[in-house]
């Protein structure tokens, strides 16, 4: 079957290096993956195309790139599924990481974030003579996070990382969950505190992209939410993120509508210095009409607020059940 690929190329050694697009037509079997197409190009059409790949079976995490605008493993993406009538399949390097050449990005950015979460077990001491005894259910839960192949697809497409380079990001947080959730780990409390800090679990904007693009169903966002829950139930509350979440819940419960100024105040806590730091941001929000001062600085309850309250009660009841 014939496929056309439009590949974003970049040669750092060119006289004036700049990305450009090049189109390739390949004849490959009908069930060929995008990676098969690229390998075909490299082997028989244009050997200068650089791409990382190894396993061809979605297990080594090498071949992450954007296909038709979304981060994917090229070896787990059927060309047929990407081909839309009359249009070329677009292939670009992953995002949020510097491009080194063609489809090869600098994964140091990725690994530095992984290193930030102390990605190794701190085993509970003293170690038993044999294995630690762990219920299989816990192992099954850990397996979800261990499924991560460190491909960087989630990091490539994370919206929060795009604006804030300090965010630890979805892959590293999913990795952190793998230790937080491990009963053999001794550093749980410390980890929860660090993960709740600046750049940690509260800097995720819930855009869901990581869940959507992860080829291994790690669902980083869900792991992030689980870390938050564990942190809160472990009493890790002295940080902007937890206060923000609590304030958010409290305000909605009380008034039925989000009250941004109140949220900001409650999130920062009763710390005048921190509060002052947020004044410029508040002014910008005001100018942009995002702070509803016309209706008074603080919201009143919305009509039908009783229903909101009942919703809360219902959710809480199911959680307890």
């Amino acid at each position, binding site marked *: 079957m014939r496929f056309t690929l439009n590949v974003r190329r970049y*040669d*750092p*050694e060119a006289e004036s290096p700049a990305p450009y697009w090049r189109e390739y037509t390949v004849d490959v*079997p009908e*069930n060929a993956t995008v990676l098969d197409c690229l*390998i075909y190009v*490299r*082997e*028989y059409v*244009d*050997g*200068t195309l*650089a*791409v*990382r*790949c*190894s*396993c*061809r*079976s*979605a*297990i*080594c*995490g*090498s071949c992450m790139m954007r296909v038709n605008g979304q981060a994917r493993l090229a070896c*787990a993406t*059927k060309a047929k599924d990407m081909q839309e009538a009359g249009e070329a399949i677009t292939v670009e390097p992953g995002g949020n990481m510097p491009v*080194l*050449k*063609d489809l*090869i990005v600098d*994964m140091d950015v990725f690994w530095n974030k992984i*290193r930030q979460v102390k*990605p*190794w*077990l701190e*085993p509970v001491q003293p*170690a038993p003579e*044999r*294995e*630690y*005894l*762990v*219920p*299989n259910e816990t*192992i*099954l839960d*850990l*397996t979800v996070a*261990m*499924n*991560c*192949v*460190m491909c960087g697809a989630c990091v490539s497409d994370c919206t929060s990382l795009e604006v804030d380079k300090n965010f630890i990001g979805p892959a590293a947080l999913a990795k952190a969950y793998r230790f937080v959730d*491990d009963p*053999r780990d001794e550093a749980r409390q410390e980890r929860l505190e660090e993960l709740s800090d600046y750049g940690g679990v509260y800097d995720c904007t819930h855009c869901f992209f990581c869940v959507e693009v992860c080829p291994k169903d790690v669902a980083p966002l869900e792991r992030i939410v689980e870390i938050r829950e564990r942190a809160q139930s472990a009493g890790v509350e002295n940080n902007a993120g937890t206060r923000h979440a609590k304030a958010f819940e409290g305000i909605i419960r009380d008034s039925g509508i989000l009250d941004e100024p109140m949220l900001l105040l409650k999130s920062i806590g009763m710390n005048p210095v921190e509060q002052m730091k947020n004044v410029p941001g508040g002014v910008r929000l005001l100018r942009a009409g995002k702070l509803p001062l016309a209706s008074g600085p603080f919201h009143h309850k919305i009509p039908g607020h009783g229903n909101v309250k009942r919703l809360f009660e219902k959710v809480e009841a199911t959680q307890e059940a």
Partner: protein
Amino acid sequence: MLEHDVLVVGAGLAGMQAALHAARQGVSVAILTKVHPVRSHSNAAQGGINAAMEEDDPWEDHAYDTVKGSDYLGDQDAIEVLCSEAPETIIELEHMGVIFNRGSRGQIDLRAFGGQARKRTCYVADITGQVMLHVIYEQLMKAGTQVYEEWFVTSLVRQNDAVCGVIAMDLRSGELHLIKAKAVILCTGGSGRVYEPSSNALICTGDGYAQAYRVGAPLMDMEMVQYHPTTLPGNGALMTEGARGEGAYLINANGERFMERYAPNMMELASRDVVSRAEQTEINEGRDINGCVLLDVRHLDRNTILQKLSQIRELGLEYEGVDIIEEPCPVRPGMHYMMGGIKTDIEGATFVKGLYSAGEAACVSVHGGNRLGANSLLDTLVYGKRAGTSAVLYADGIPFADVPESRLQEDREHIKGILARNGENGERAAALRLAMGQTMHQHVGVFRDQAGLEEAQSIIAALKERYRNVSVDDKGKVFNTDLLFALEVGLMLDVAEAIVASALFRAESRGAHYRTDFPDRNDDDWLKHTLVFSGDSGPRLETLPVTITQWQPARRTY
């Protein structure tokens, strides 16, 4: 000047284990790898890792199954080390953080694997290798071991009688460097790409075999190439033996469980050489479905499939469009593993001073003529540790060698030559590799004979000749993957040559090596290892006796 007491080449399980254990001795250790460590092929191991973990399972039973599986070609002293050190190795890994699936008391659970009399395989769903590789890399990060990441060894440096460093290319910059080392440990994995198709990753190009061979270290039992019974026809991807461990059937075009005729006791769980031969016989005799037989799990519980075999379900869906819950999946024997490799002793030392090896690159030999499923991961860890420890002992107290600048220049010139060649009248590496792979599959696969092997020999010789004219499109430095592949193909051709020569030499059938012109095992003449050296006029063959401790060769039935 780059120099380390111990330099480990390869960051799969064997390499990282060697580096960790060497670093614990407090010497300067670095690890060098052509891909990021977690991209290494150890990732692909789905099924698990063997160890006699239960009280009523003495390690000697594991050893016996391994000896029998090897068709009595495995060295029994090495197998004793492998199996007796297995349980502590598993515990060490568990303490590092490997999660392992658990039984009812929270203890490590075991699953059944081929060629073994009882359940003995520890596993993590069907991502055992991946979890182990990632966890051992966690330990490497924790230890802060220096990693030359995305560096490619082009050759080993040998001065007088000892290996004393490597020449390697930093793929990011394209620069060649000399790295001096008192001891080098080759953990470069297998060479599936010498065959087409293969279950192996694209990086499995047997670099270490060729590089050791070129500096005079002999390769042992290279004719022993494992064909795995259940690979997908499309791309050679593997459907784990764990599936048969969980109870999957193999059926032919007539719907028969044909293993009844070949291994009435063990059925689908007979050892791999036996099952692959049975399948190939069914296929050759016309009871096939488009050159395949079927792997059938429909009778298994849906949850078992979803929890324990999820990855192969994905593979079936992804590459064959088959949901194994609903339909049987076509499979066929496919090239999978090299039992042979760089000859080492049980301390990981090769025949050349300063050169050590472990993992699939090495041949101790614990697998002999046929490796049992889930014994390879064990091999990487047990012998990775030993190689790491003994390389330190060797390196301790000796000086770095003086290596003349001209040695680096040799490799520079070689590469310059390839880059300078004009693409129009040059040979494409991909075409050479494909021809090599298909030749090896056709003539040096499940069934072999003299005529076919001789034909393979002359084809490989012709390809080597054509390789002298290999050229590349990419003339740049940064990530020149075109050049990298051309260099790998050059190494692979040497590996192919060594395999064919060894297969021609062994005039009997044993384990994975089945000669239709010598269909029987011949213990009188061939209960010995083949040893291949690189000679001036091609491969030179010798033999080595097999070490037998407690298990006398017997007829092998399953």
